[in-house]
């Protein structure tokens, strides 16, 4: 570089200043554009992530609702395989999911009704004092007939027992199993035939479950249950 080049030209100095100012302006513009561009992209991607999370959440909820419906329907369709306790556990689990779905809520109500009905069926029927007294007398007769020492004694006891009934053809049912709200019966018979059965077989394997009285206080129907 020659000495001459070091000589300051006032015109040239002004031009350099302008050029530098332009450069700075351009740089600022680029930085601003970049920041705007990156900012938009970043905002767009965070919105997308939020939407995806929301969609995932909704899909999971839909799946949970479908599964809950299936599980609740299985309880309603159960034919005795599930215990009341198992049904309650399953119901509480589903209620704990707080799905807040109209169909699920309806199924929950129906399952609650079913469990209540099952529980009621498990309870022994309430007995009034007259029924209790008749029940005790009848139980004793059953035992005496089954253990009678002779045919004559058994026949005499049978006649006495029949006196408690409105007819010797009063229907007699025997429950062989009661579970999950379902009651299974043996073939229906009559009180006469049942008392003769006790006499013939010499075994008293059933307990009194329910007595139905007529207006005269006589037993018109009897339900027994396997001991």
């Amino acid at each position: 570089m020659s000495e001459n080049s070091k000589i300051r030209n006032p015109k040239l100095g002004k031009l350099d200043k302008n050029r530098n100012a332009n450069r700075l302006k351009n740089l600022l513009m680029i930085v601003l554009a970049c920041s705007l561009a990156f900012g938009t992209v970043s905002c767009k991607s965070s919105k997308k992530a939020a939407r995806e999370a929301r969609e995932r959440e909704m899909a999971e909820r839909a799946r949970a609702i479908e599964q809950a419906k299936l599980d609740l329907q299985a309880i309603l369709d159960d034919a005795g395989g599930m215990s009341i306790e198992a049904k309650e556990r399953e119901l509480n689990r589903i209620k704990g999911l707080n799905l807040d779905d109209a169909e699920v809520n309806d199924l929950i109500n129906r399952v609650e009704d079913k469990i209540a009905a099952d529980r009621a069926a498990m309870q022994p029927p309430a007995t009034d004092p007259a029924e209790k007294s008749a029940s005790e007398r009848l139980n004793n007769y059953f035992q005496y007939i089954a253990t009678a020492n002779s045919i004559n004694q058994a026949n005499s006891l049978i006649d006495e027992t029949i006196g408690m009934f409105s007819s010797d053809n009063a229907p007699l049912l025997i429950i062989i199993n009661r579970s999950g709200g379902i009651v299974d019966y043996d073939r229906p018979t009559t009180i006469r035939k049942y008392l003769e059965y006790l006499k013939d077989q010499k075994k008293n394997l059933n307990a009194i479950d329910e007595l139905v009285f007529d207006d005269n206080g006589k037993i018109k129907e009897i339900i027994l249950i396997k001991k």
Partner: protein
Amino acid sequence: MRNYKSLIILLFVLVAGFSANAQDNISPERKRAIDSLALEKIRDLGTYISRVGNKDTEFSESNRIIDRALELFAPGSEMGVSSLYSSDIKYYTIRKYFERLMALNYDKVSIQWYNIEYVSDLELGPDGRYVGVITIYQSFEGTGADGLQYRDTTKKDITVYVERKSTQIAGREIEFWDVLLGDIRVTETSV
């Protein structure tokens, strides 16, 4: 025409299958109750046979017991009878069997059934009935004025049918399990 026939057969199979399925949908607890109900009926029959065979049982009582015993059987069922003196096994209708039992020419008859158990579990058949086979051992002793005249032990297989039925009791529908015994076949006879 052939197409119609095929369709009807298909429908019948589907209906039978559905009905069988519906009945098969029972819990193990209920199945156990039905199993023991059938075993109980067999024990009852053993006692009836013993009572009718017993020479001390009055004629009128025996006839009443026979009527009760017949109620345990499906119509047309037969009982096999064997003897140590012959390889033949004779089959009689249940009433005929009881009448012959009552008329046996001994002063005293003792019949006992024991080891009563399933040899073939109750299984749901295509007709909607459960069918199983229960085996029993029967000891028979006939005693005359001079003492023991005849004794044998027989193993018998009893076919058991269990069917869901319904009836009206005091104006309401009652569904029940009807246990009916089928043929009783002799499988072994020994001293």
